[in-house]
Each structure stands twice: as structure tokens, then as C-alpha cells.
């Protein structure tokens, strides 16, 4: 009857229609296939077996092609049997294949030389300033701040006047300005400048947005300044401000303390000192414990244990009035800091100029 010994297997399919009932032949095919599968040792012989039985001119396929030649009443039962056999063979193939694969995985594991030099994936790097900005945006977004963007070529009006810094105000000295050459433009000389601070967006946004609001504005700023390790004529700032009923210094300090701890780590200490900026009153300057020595005192922080990081304060009533917000009804705070400074502090870089050097040996560290 059925021969289970593969060495003496008999192929009868070619002559099945004359001598043997079709059911028997199908069972014979199944058993032969199963014995081949049992015997197979690798993926290749399994694939051959699959082709031999289930392929386009495989034995089972050819057998099925004879189906129409059967008497009608027998077709359904034989058809069902054939399909069942097909499923059985497919399942056996799949099971054996996973067994063979896992054997070869084991072999592969054993043959790995774990000391070979690594080949890293070829991915690029986001600039440290962008990384610092993304992190800042993320933290302030979680506090309900919306992010805005505005012009770098700005009018004297928004960069200074609205911010309670009229012409000839002594504090203009602390922000030496680069002016746009008005030749060939419709501007008058001295009208347009390269913004010295992202605070230019305070007026622009506040005069068109009804309070309450919470805003974050990052961007590039320009100063007439000679370049050295801690100064540049171009650098990046981020400005934040909020206006609501009853906003207080407590809220400003709470917000900044939260931000610094999120940004520089929970152990960061924050201290606030009084400072004067014309567009805030009271005015504030924030320091954090030195990132290098953790407050012990080192050359980075000039042995003080603290580094200056940000200017802030309660928005000056003159600024609120200038943008049409009633200072008796609303109050707000504002702060501004250098993204470039944040980046150099975070990554312990000793020179601002590193940030604008397009050297991959620097960029690839971030």
C-alpha cells in the first residue's frame, strides 16, 4: 500500500487515472510530500519540495487539473480532500521551515565575532541650537505657550519705541544697533534696523492679540558688537511673555524655575536678582548654578558658582498701554534669553563661535 520509506517511493501520479482511484492517489501524494518534508534539513530542500508538489507543474497541481474529468457527483468530495491535503502540506512546510530557520539562527549566533569594529548608521545631526530650541518649545508648550515667528529686519518702532525705549534713551547703548542701508528702498535712513532682541515681537503680537495669552518667540538677533568667545554680532534668542489677570512675580519665578529644572536638570539651583530693562518693572535677572562645577566655583563661572542666563520682569505699564492693554486690568511677565548661551551652557562649550563653525567634527558630537 502506502510506502513510507522514501528510498522506495513510487510515483503513480502519471498513471493514476487508469488504475487507481483519485482519492488514493491524492493521499499518496500527501504522504510522499510529508516524508520529504520530514527529511529536509534546510530551507533550500524545503523550497524544492514545495515546488515539486505545490508549484505550477507540481504533482498536486497537476492532479487537481484532472478534477473536471471526474463524474460530477464525485467532484465536490475529491475537491475538498485535495484542498485539505494542500493545507496539510503547506502547514507542514511552514512548521519545518521555522524549525530549520531557528537551527540556522542558533548556528549564526555561535559564529558571530563580537569584537568587530562597529559600523554606525549614516545619520546626520541636528544643530545644538535647534536641539536647545526644540527642548525649550516642548517645555513651554506644556505650560500652554504658543510659538510665534516674526521679522528680523525691523522698524525702530517695534524694536525700541514700543518697548519704552525712546530715541536717545541711555539703554540703547547696551544694544548697539546695525541699521539697514535705505538706498534703493522706500525706507527713510535709520528707520529700519536688524532687530537687537526678539522682544520686538512683544508689540507686534500684543497689539493684535486679545489677552490672555502665553507666547514664545525664538529667533536670530543682531548687534553691533566685535566678535569674541562670548560675544557675536549675530546670535539666537528666545523670548517668552504672558498676560492674564493677576500675573505676578511669583508666577514669573515659578515658571522660570520650572523651565530651568526641566532644561538643565532637577538639581539646578536658580536665583533671581534685581535688574533694569526699560520694558519691564520690576526687572529681573536670573542666574543658575554653574553647569560645570555644580555651584562649587570654577573658571567657567568666575568662581562664583553662578552663571547669568536670562533677563526678565513684569511687563512695564507703558508697554501695555502702548499696545492698547489696560494695565489696571491685566498684568504680565516677559523674559528673554540667548539660545546660543543656553546651548554653550548645556554642552559646556567655551566659545560662542563654535556654534557658527560648519565643522562636522563639532556638529557630529550632538
Amino acid at each position, binding site marked *: 500500500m502506502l510506502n513510507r520509506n522514501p528510498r522506495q517511493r513510487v510515483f503513480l501520479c502519471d498513471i493514476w487515472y487508469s488504475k487507481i482511484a483519485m482519492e488514493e492517489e491524492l493521499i499518496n501524494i500527501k504522504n510522499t510530500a510529508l516524508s520529504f518534508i520530514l527529511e529536509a534539513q534546510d530551507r533550500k530542500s524545503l523550497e524544492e519540495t514545495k515546488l515539486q508538489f505545490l508549484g505550477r507543474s507540481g504533482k498536486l497541481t497537476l492532479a487537481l487539473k484532472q478534477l473536471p474529468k471526474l463524474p460530477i457527483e464525485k467532484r465536490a468530495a475529491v475537491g475538498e480532500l485535495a484542498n485539505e491535503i494542500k493545507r496539510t502540506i503547506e502547514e507542514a512546510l511552514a512548521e519545518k521551515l521555522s524549525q530549520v530557520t531557528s537551527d540556522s539562527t542558533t548556528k549564526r549566533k555561535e559564529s558571530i565575532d563580537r569584537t568587530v569594529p562597529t559600523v554606525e548608521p549614516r*545619520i*546626520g545631526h*541636528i544643530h545644538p541650537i*535647534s536641539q536647545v530650541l526644540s527642548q525649550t*518649545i516642548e517645555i513651554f508648550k506644556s*505650560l*500652554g505657550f*504658543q*510659538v*510665534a*515667528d516674526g*521679522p*528680523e529686519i525691523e522698524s525702530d518702532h517695534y524694536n525700541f519705541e514700543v518697548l519704552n525705549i525712546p530715541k*536717545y534713551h*541711555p539703554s540703547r547703548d547696551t544694544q548697539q544697533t*546695525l*541699521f*539697514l542701508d*535705505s*538706498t*534703493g*528702498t*522706500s525706507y527713510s*535712513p535709520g528707520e529700519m534696523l536688524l532687530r537687537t532682541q526678539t522682544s520686538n*515681537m512683544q508689540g507686534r*503680537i500684543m497689539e493684535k*492679540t*486679545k*489677552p490672555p495669552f*502665553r507666547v514664545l518667540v525664538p529667533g*536670530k538677533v543682531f548687534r*553691533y558688537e*566685535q*566678535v569674541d568667545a562670548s560675544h557675536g*554680532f*549675530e546670535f539666537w534668542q528666545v523670548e517668552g511673555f504672558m498676560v*492674564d489677570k*493677576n500675573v*505676578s*512675580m*511669583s*508666577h514669573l*519665578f*515659578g515658571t522660570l*524655575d*520650572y523651565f530651568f529644572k526641566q532644561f538643565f536638570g532637577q538639581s539646578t539651583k536658580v536665583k*533671581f*536678582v*534685581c*535688574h*533694569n530693562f526699560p520694558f519691564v*518693572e*520690576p*526687572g529681573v535677572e536670573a542666574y543658575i548654578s554653574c553647569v560645570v562645577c555644580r555651584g562649587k566655583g570654577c573658571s567657567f563661572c568666575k568662581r562664583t558658582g553662578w552663571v547669568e542666563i536670562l533677563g526678565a520682569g513684569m511687563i512695564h*505699564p507703558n508697554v501695555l498701554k502702548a499696545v492698547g492693554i489696560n494695565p489696571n486690568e491685566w*498684568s504680565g511677565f516677559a523674559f528673554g534669553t540667548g539660545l546660543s548661551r543656553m546651548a554653550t551652557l548645556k554642552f559646556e562649550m567655551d566659545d560662542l563661535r563654535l556654534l557658527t*563653525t*560648519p*565643522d*562636522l567634527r563639532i556638529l557630529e558630537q550632538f
Partner: protein
Amino acid sequence: MLVPLSLLKDYVKITLPESKLSEKLTEAGLGVENIEEKEGEKILDLEVTPNRPDWLSVVGVAREIASLENLKVALPKVSEIKKPAKILPLKIKTDYRINPRFTGIIISNVNVEDSPQWLKERLIKIGMRPINNIVDITNFVMYELGNPLHAFDYDKIEGHQMSVGLSMEGESFESVDAVTYHLPKGAVVIRDSKKIIDLCGIKGGKNSGIYSGTKNVFIRVPVEVPNLIRKTSAKLGLRSDASSIFEKGVDAGNTVFALKRCVGLILKIAGGAVASEIYDLKEDRFEFWRLKVAVEKLNKIIGTEIPQKQTLGILESLNLSPKITKEGIECKIPTYRNDLKIEEDLIEEVARLYGYNKIEKKMPAGQIPVRRIEYFKDYSTMQKAKEILVAAGFSEIKSYSLVSEVELDKFGLNSKAVLRVDNPVSREFEYLRPTLKIGLAKGLAENKKFTSDINLFELGKTYRKKDKKATEEYFLACLSSNLSFAQLKGIIQKLFSEFGIKNDTSSFIEVLGEALFFEINFSEIETKANTQKIYKPIPKYPPIIEDLSIEVSKNFKTGDIIEHIKKQSPLIYDVSLIDEFENSKTFHIVYQDREKNLTRADVSKIREEIIKALKNKFLATSN
């Protein structure tokens, strides 16, 4: 502002160690930048903010320490000026709009010589150069009290008359340090009967200065108009210790006291006798003013309730004489506190002396505002673009917006059409870049020295003149030293498809030295971007995939051939070029029917259509 500790101790008791003292001063707003040690002397280097010109004097600094430590300031003792025995004549004419107060006196028969050692030493310690006793005394009193004084040689005031007025454009003036200036229109000056003898509030004139032969002197202690001083000083690029006090606002109530102090020192050191009454020409009374702060507002702005007793104590320590009234606390502001003008200024005084770091830290309360702000920007578009480029192996650079004419030239850009800065820091940084190419080309040059694998990008602003206005737009630019044209074009394609932009990708790439470069207007992408993803069911039926090789002349563009193949049947799902050799091209064609199983017969019909179409249009032969 340099203040030797030993000098400070003459005016206020100092009990704190200097490190603690500088911490306290800094917290209160008078930043101690450094404590220098010079010849055994500790000198405070103070950062004085423009709102506090009173801190530009040693008495002002002493007052701050006294407020912090609840101490009293020891002002220098001055005596009343005696009736002059003999009066020298002098006529003074002034205009209160340009010179609100003019205080002065004549002293006759002084001996002009070197200052005594103690005075010289003090001046050197505070960074001033001793000149002669009269000049040194005026400088020292300015440093001590914060009122600039100027000494004139009385005998050189021609006609014995002084008249304060405004300069005319181009008038010439030689300063005491022998520099000639051509004055702008509107500088405040003093003229005698013939000439300009003083550039008020900035520099004295050489023609009326104090030299060894001077016998009689006139001392002037003025109040100047801050804006006028600042305008002239800015136009001339000339600043002095005096101008930096006047432009911020001098203590207008203290001119007579400063004069008396100066006279006392002159009589003691240089001898002589008073030879006039005190001139004090003014319209205003220059007295204290009243300012109120509502307790409710104080607590609201600070956010922490400070006990009223403590608030009053703080205001008292600042000599503000607080008094409780119905509308709040009323203060009398001394004339040296020009910075205290509005309620918020008093709130700052209370907060800074209470100690900023004692104020409770709270998170903002209330609802998060949901209304969209003006100038809102969704940074996630930029973020997404950067992520794609980084994944493709590109590193981000940040370069300067300001570039040089030489760099513009190098890329064939006409500097006349480019926005320019009027007062550049240097010629290297003069023009606002109209392209990101310059920065990336620098990146290429910089990195070429040590690697051949250079893939850089920048996302930043470029600037242009448009319709006589300045415009700025974000651009995204990439540079690659080792990707093929097709690969770089693939990156543009990837960016466009991510943002739902339908645009031809082939026109952006250009050759830049040994690298390929492209830049695209990112502001435009941001306005058009559609990142909404909508799920399409995966095909139920398997595709049929074939490779088709043809021989075709190189004159025909691959992109056109692919487009033409796609046109032949809607069942052609995708076509790509997988191989190319001389005139032969092999295309990978995916046939897919979403409705049913494709048969070989279906596909062979389409294939024949394709071959026919390619033969007709591109004279291609299939092999």
C-alpha cells in the same frame, strides 16, 4: 564704577565680609562684577544700570548699603558760605528749557598746584588722572556726590558774562584736552562775550580751563537736559563721566550742597576767598515729589503678601518717608531718585529689598489661553523637514546672515541688488544673504580638509529687496559631496511628498564645486504644507512585477520615458529605472489592479502597448 572699600567705609559702616556684601548688592540690582585687589586695596567693580545714575557716586553706593543693612550714611560735612568781602562781577544769562538749573560761585586768589597726596591717591584708585588741585577737587566731588562740576578761569571769561544757548551747525570748539570738535546744531554751550567756553555737560573749553597761572575761578554746578546731552554726545562720539551722569538724570536738588562741598575743599586745599554770592538760577523748586503705591496692587504684582510693617520698614530704609493714606502708602521721593516715577517703581523697591528669592514660586494659575495668537508658527513643519534630512545623513549648520561683497561676487550675485547694513561691524559682514549657498559652500571648504563624506543642510532666512521693501523668507538648502543627482533629487521628492507638495523636483539641483546643492523656499512650503495622512486600504490582489529592457537613444530623458510608460494604462502602479548601460535601460514595472486578480494575459497586453508606444515616441526597441 570703581569703589575702593576703604573709601566706602568713610560714608557707611561695613560689617559684612565682601563676598556677602557683593552678593547682597547684586541681588538688590547693583551688580558687583568683580572685586579687584590692587596694592592691598579691595576695589568693587560695579555694573550700574542706566536707571540709577545715583549709583555713579560713592554716596549713592553707600546709601544702597545703608538701606540693605539698616544703617545711616555719613554725608561729608559742609559749612555755610560766608558773605564775600569783595565781589567780582559776572553776568549770567540762561534758558531753563535747555539748562534747568545753573548753580555757581566765584572764588578769588586760589593757588593752582598739584593736589595733596591723599587726594591724588584717591583719584588714582578710582581710575582718574590727577591734573591740578582745582580740577581734582571738582572731579572728586562729582565722584563723591554724583553732581558734575566744572571750574572756569574767571579771568578768561571775556566781558565777564556767561550765556547759555544752543550751538549752530559746524561751530568749532576746542576741549580742555585739546581736541577740536565741529559742533552739531543744537548742542548746549556757554558763550562769553566772544566765544564758546563750555560744551555743557560734556567737556569744558580749553580757552577757559584751569592752569597753573589761574588766579580766580568760577565753579559751575548745573542740571542739564538728558536728551540734549545725549544727542550731542552721540553725534560727536564724545562721552565723559559728566555726560554719562547728565544723560541719565542728575540729582537736581543737590547742586548747592555739592557746590558748598567743593568750595570747602578749595578753600582748604587751594586757599583763596569766596568772591560772589551763590548763583542759583532755576525755575523749578527741585524738591521731593510724592508717589503712592496701593497695597493691593503691591501684593498682586509681587504675588506674595509682605507684612505691611515690613513694607513700611523697607521704604523707610530707602529714605522714602512712607505714610499710610486712604489710597495706599504715600512716599516722598528724594531728588536723587529720578527713577521712581510710577507705582511699579515703588513695587520694585519693596520687592528687591524684601529679597527676590524670598518671593514664593508659583505656576501661573487659570485656564490655558486657547485663542490663536498673531504670528503663530507651527514649528513641527521645520522639525519634520530636519528629521527627514538627518535620517538621510545630513547635518545641520547655522551660518551668519551677514556676508561680504567678495562672497556675493564669487556666486555671481550683484551686491547692488542685495540688502546692505549701513554700519557693518566689518566688510566681511556687510550684506544680508539672498541665498544659503554661501554658508554651505563654506561648510564644504571647511570639511574637505578631513573628509569626503560631506552632507550639510541649513534652514534659515534669506533676505531680498522686493518692491523697494525688505523681505525675508525661510529657505532650506542641502549640499552633498557624495550623493548622486538621483539620490539628492530623491531627497527633494521625499520632502515634497511629506508635505503634500506637487511640484517638479528636477529643476532645483545645481553643481557647486565638487558637490551638488539645492535650495527650496521653505516659507512657501510651510504655507502650502498638507501633512494630513489618509489611510488607503492595501491592495487585496497581488501585483505582477516585470522588468522591461529597451534600447533607446541617450537624447531622451528617463523622466519622460517613465511618464510615457505610466500613461499607457491605469493598471501601471509604479515604474522605476533599475539599470542603465550605454543605450540600454531597464525599467521595473508594477502592475496592480485594485478590483481583481491580474492575469499574465492582461499584463502581456499592456506590455505590448508599452513597447509600441515607446517605439513610436522614442524610437526604442525592446530586447
